[in-house]
């Protein structure tokens, strides 16, 4: 916790130019960012551009960057909403360190997003948003459209407002409604820029606004106007179309998915695989709430959601549901999970399955609710009174959330234990193409459900898993009493015996430790099985680490990547695997929490790379850290 190196990224304004940002009309991958007021509809068209890219055969990662405020005054800095898309002709793993194409609808959007734009990048500005008021609100003294401050970029300055109004004229909308189509004009322009066919989007618009055809038509017209305007620009020679190659993904049926949705689907699937009802109890908190929202829409599957009066009640209801034979799940973020800890302790004591999802956000305390972080690892592993061990897992990407939910449910039920499953604000909101599984192909989950009343002892254990049986109220002959007071190791009756307490403490520890043998062995995600350096990550650092290891390996560095899904207990081969490398680097979006745990678990010595800026690592930061670490190996 003390000896952490801190990554030193270049100041943001110095970033880029991207090595791959070319002007010859072709880019392996491109990063587009659309920014405007919350009301400008950037999320909507961003999503459409993503779907279109996927259909066009790109891999991609998207990242909606919402403002912290609900609805800030128009034109304000803190009211800017942005949508970022990284797509291209290779496996896309991050949202991208910088932006190749930035669309900004007003000065505030320009101000807050320009630092992300690569030198020489394309900057599309809607001049209709650059009123004197808006310039003042964004804190510009002089207009950037006039003071040459944007000289280093490929500037495309358009009166999108006016052109949209023109396009919408035939449909007799109010000015306000007509102007609302600006976002589709911009989308049309982007479609032109990347040589995309807008027809599917036009169909989608018609369906979406089926109830208000004049609005649908205006939006389609605006999009088409934007598209044709591209040709005009091209003729003017300012910028030209960019070709982004397609990427051959594994064959399969795909969809775009966010981490929150994947988590919800994973939970519902796990319930089905274990033949349990899913009961999800939660209290809203950013950024976990989307999981509740998604599941609330799955009543057709018999999924029950319960918005409790607080986090304690949510955990209690989930535990009660598990006690009564359902798969009980609760989801929250750090401050809410803090409140659940006493209840989680009861789940440890009573040995009932329970899944606690923590969508991490920047702390401590309320912290930065809309910003991502990985700083609840300590809380998850150690944050209970008494010796109260439980398994902890972490999802690494949106799609992985689906499988982690199933794995958490498997462990929780097989071992009759609460499981903490970590995700974070970034994973929850970001989306990526996802190969849709057929759930009939997934292995079923066995549950230690008992109905046989003969010789039932509530705390008798399965020899192998050490799990007690799940004896569900309503089952004749299994009536029994449990509780939070220490229980006799067999009968479950309250026991004050010193020997029994020692025994039960050891059993609880052993049961959880055993899980280390029942999870997949740790493997190298990328690179050799030994070498100069291994980068060890967990959770949402997966993308940036993976990409940086790829690029550094391409440059000839002997670096590998290992990514943990199981935070506690570790897979049993972890220490051995890591010891095959000369040096271990652990990048984390916290002050070094995994490093602490690795030391505590006697893993070989490692050094940390910490970042607490509420946002993911940049690939370039990691590349520097990798090259520094390998330099040190070489120097002795």
């Amino acid at each position: 916790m003390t000896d952490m190196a801190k990554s030193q990224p270049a100041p943001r304004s110095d970033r880029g130019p991207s090595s791959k940002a070319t002007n010859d009309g072709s880019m392996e991958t491109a990063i587009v960012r659309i920014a405007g007021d919350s009301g400008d509809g950037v999320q909507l068209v961003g999503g459409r551009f993503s779907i279109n890219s996927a259909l066009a055969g790109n891999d991609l990662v998207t990242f909606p960057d919402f403002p912290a405020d609900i609805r800030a005054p128009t034109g304000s800095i803190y009211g800017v909403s942005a949508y970022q898309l990284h797509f291209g002709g290779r496996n896309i793993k991050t949202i991208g360190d910088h932006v190749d194409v930035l669309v900004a609808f007003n000065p505030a959007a320009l101000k807050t997003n320009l630092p992300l734009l690569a030198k020489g990048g394309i900057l599309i500005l809607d001049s209709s948003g650059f009123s004197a008021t808006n310039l003042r609100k964004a804190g510009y003294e002089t207009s950037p459209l006039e003071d040459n401050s944007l000289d280093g970029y490929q500037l495309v300055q358009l009166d999108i407002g006016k052109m949209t109004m023109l396009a919408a004229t035939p449909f007799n909308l109010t000015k306000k409604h007509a102007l609302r189509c600006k976002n589709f004009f911009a989308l049309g322009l982007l479609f032109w820029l990347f040589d995309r066919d807008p027809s599917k989007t036009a169909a989608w618009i018609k369906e979406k606004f089926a109830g208000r055809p004049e609005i649908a038509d205006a939006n389609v017209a605006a999009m088409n106007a934007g598209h044709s305007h591209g040709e005009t620009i091209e003729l003017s020679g300012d910028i030209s179309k960019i070709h982004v190659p397609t990427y051959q993904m594994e064959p399969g049926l795909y969809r775009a998915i966010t981490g929150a949705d994947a988590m919800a689907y994973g939970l519902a699937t796990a319930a089905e695989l274990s033949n349990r009802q899913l009961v999800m109890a939660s209290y809203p908190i950013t950024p976990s709430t989307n999981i509740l929202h998604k599941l609330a829409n799955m009543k057709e599957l018999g999924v029950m959601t319960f918005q409790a009066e607080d986090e304690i009640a949510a955990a209690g209801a989930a535990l009660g549901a598990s006690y009564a034979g359902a798969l009980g799940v609760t989801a929250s973020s750090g401050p809410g999970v803090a409140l659940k800890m006493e209840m989680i302790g009861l789940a440890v004591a009573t040995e009932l399955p329970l899944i606690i999802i923590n969508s991490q956000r920047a702390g401590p305390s309320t912290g930065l609710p809309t910003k991502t972080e990985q700083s609840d690892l300590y809380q998850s592993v150690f944050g209970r009174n008494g010796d109260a061990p439980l398994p902890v897992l972490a999802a690494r990407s949106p799609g992985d959330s689906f499988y982690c939910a199933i794995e958490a449910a498997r462990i929780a039920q097989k071992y009759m234990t609460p499981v903490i499953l970590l995700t974070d604000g970034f994973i929850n909101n970001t989306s990526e193409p996802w190969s849709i599984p057929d759930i009939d192909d997934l292995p079923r989950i066995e549950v230690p459900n008992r109905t046989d009343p003969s010789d039932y002892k509530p705390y008798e254990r399965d020899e192998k898993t050490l799990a007690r049986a799940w004896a569900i109220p309503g089952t004749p002959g299994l009536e029994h009493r449990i509780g939070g007071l220490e229980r006799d190791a067999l009968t479950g009756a309250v026991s004050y015996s010193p020997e029994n307490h020692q025994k039960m403490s050891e059993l609880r520890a052993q049961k959880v430790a055993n899980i280390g043998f029942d999870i997949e062995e740790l493997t190298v995600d990328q690179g050799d099985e030994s070498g100069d350096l291994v980068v060890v990550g967990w959770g949402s650092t997966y993308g940036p680490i993976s990409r940086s290891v790829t690029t550094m390996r391409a440059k000839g560095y002997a670096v590998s990547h290992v990514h943990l899904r199981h935070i506690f207990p570790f897979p049993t081969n972890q220490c051995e695997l890591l010891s095959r490398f000369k040096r271990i680097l652990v990048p984390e979006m916290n002050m070094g929490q995994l490093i602490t745990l690795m030391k505590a678990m006697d893993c070989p010595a490692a050094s940390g790379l910490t970042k607490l800026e509420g946002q993911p690592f940049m690939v370039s930061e990691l590349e520097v850290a990798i090259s520094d670490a390998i330099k040190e190996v070489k120097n002795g």
Partner: protein
Amino acid sequence: MGDQLHGAGLKPADYASSQEVRWCPGCGDYAILKAVRKTMADVGASLENTLVISGIGCAARFPYYMATYGFHTIHGRAPTIASGAMLANPDLDVWIITGDGDALAIGGNHFIHLLRRNFNCQILLFNNEIYGLTKGQYSPTSRENTRSPSTPMGSVDTPLSASHVALGAGGRFVARAVDTQQKQLVDILTKAYQHKGTSFVEIFQNCIVYNDGVFDPFTDKKNVADHQIYVEHQKPMIFGADSDKGIIVDAGFNLKPAKLDAGAPPLIHDETNRSLAFMLAEQTPPDGPMVMGVLYQHPNDTYQTRVKQQIKTAQSNNKRSINGFLRDGTTWTVK
């Protein structure tokens, strides 16, 4: 609760677990245990379908003494766990056992939310106006000026009135009883059991060790007749050893006790009138009689029913499988 699964002629003793009961000798909890077992036998509750859930406190040991399913949870949180259990299995017969500290100090929030949601269950609050298990500190129901280890000069906070809190929270069955008045208690517990929705019963329970005799002003044999009234729906509210007193409304729009011969006729109890119940709960000795019985009962849909209904509706509208859900929205095939 309900009539779904019945114990076939079980006797009160059949509801007793093998565990030795460990309250202090003379504790009022024994009487309540007896009454609950009797009620269960009377209504024919089944062992396997009955779940007794408690928090922490002397009262909260209750589940250990029942031969049904039982969960001794953590302090103040029994309503939350019970709610989850009822979501998972809407047909369980759930009894929540709680103390004045458990329900109204640490558990106050869950208490009011359980009531407003109207989960179908019983919640019995053993009110001894003290923290028994932790050795005698004053509780949220302790009277002003209660001297206790944590308030050696007397407590300064105004106590909560459990019935008022329950009514204020929208509880739809609010009743009161006394631990040792067995017949009355079994009657009220039976009504609570039969009521569909959350039935709240406050039971005045004597803690012989830390608060002995605190209810004597209305529970002592010599005081019962003149300082207690047992109200019943549609019956005139009359009390007194000679049935010569009644509850009337005065000009200032307040309830008060009065000699019946004084002219004004006693009010008729209307258990569906929530404000009346609120006013009845305000009567306290020595000024007014302590009101026992069902102060308020006004059934409404239960939470379980409504949730089940939504799921049914959702399923009948358009039942997709999980595979269907996974494939909703835009999908594309990579070959």
